[in-house]
């Protein structure tokens, strides 16, 4: 059983398109995250939801919009994709925010051409 699963694993798309990445966790965790890892391997938090409520919203273009339909799901929708959006996007979950162990999904490698 996969604890945190993301789909798709790879996503290649053209500039200007709109795409979504889905994330689901079966750990019963209250908190979910989206991280972006660029080509230099920096892991930067984008969003965090706790019990479906947005608690962290870092400086991210408003083309990125997270949606949490329930505690087990956190999806990421990206509008008008740009070349600079190319990166690996990781979903993660934890029992609570901040000072606890996080479990990461396998990542979605997004390539914008």
């Amino acid at each position, binding site marked *: 059983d996969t604890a945190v699963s993301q789909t798709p694993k790879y996503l290649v798309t053209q500039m200007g398109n709109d795409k979504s990445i889905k994330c689901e966790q079966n750990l019963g965790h209250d908190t979910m995250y989206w991280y972006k890892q660029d080509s*230099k*391997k*920096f*892991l*930067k*938090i984008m969003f965090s939801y706790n019990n479906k409520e947005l*608690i*962290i919203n870092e400086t991210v273009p408003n083309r990125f919009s997270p949606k949490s339909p329930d505690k087990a799901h956190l999806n990421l929708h990206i509008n008008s994709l740009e070349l600079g959006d190319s990166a690996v996007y*990781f979903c993660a979950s934890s029992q*609570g*925010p*901040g*000072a*606890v*162990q*996080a*479990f*990461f*999904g*396998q*990542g979605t490698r997004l390539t914008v051409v």
Partner: protein
Amino acid sequence: QQPVQSPQAVILREGEDAVINCSSSKALYSVHWYRQKHGEAPVFLMILLKGGEQKGHEKISASFNEKKQQSSLYLTASQLSYSGTYFCGTVQADNYGQNFVFGPGTRLSVLP
């Protein structure tokens, strides 16, 4: 406030030891360590809470000096499987639960 990690990269022979350091300019509540192998997701290693504790995971241990706002990860008798990028993550004492930030990572290569 992103923590600083040193060194940026280290190359070892199997069986050698290494130390990876993580420091912050802010007072810390906790330090987390993760390892990411190439092409994979980061995997949790351990959390250290303020109180100067030390923890161990296989032959990997860590310490946290809250007064110096520093943590060190110790890898002893390194194995090939230890290769990967090690990230520390910090939670600031004045922003508990709301501000977890990863360091830039330390790339560790263990050669046979």
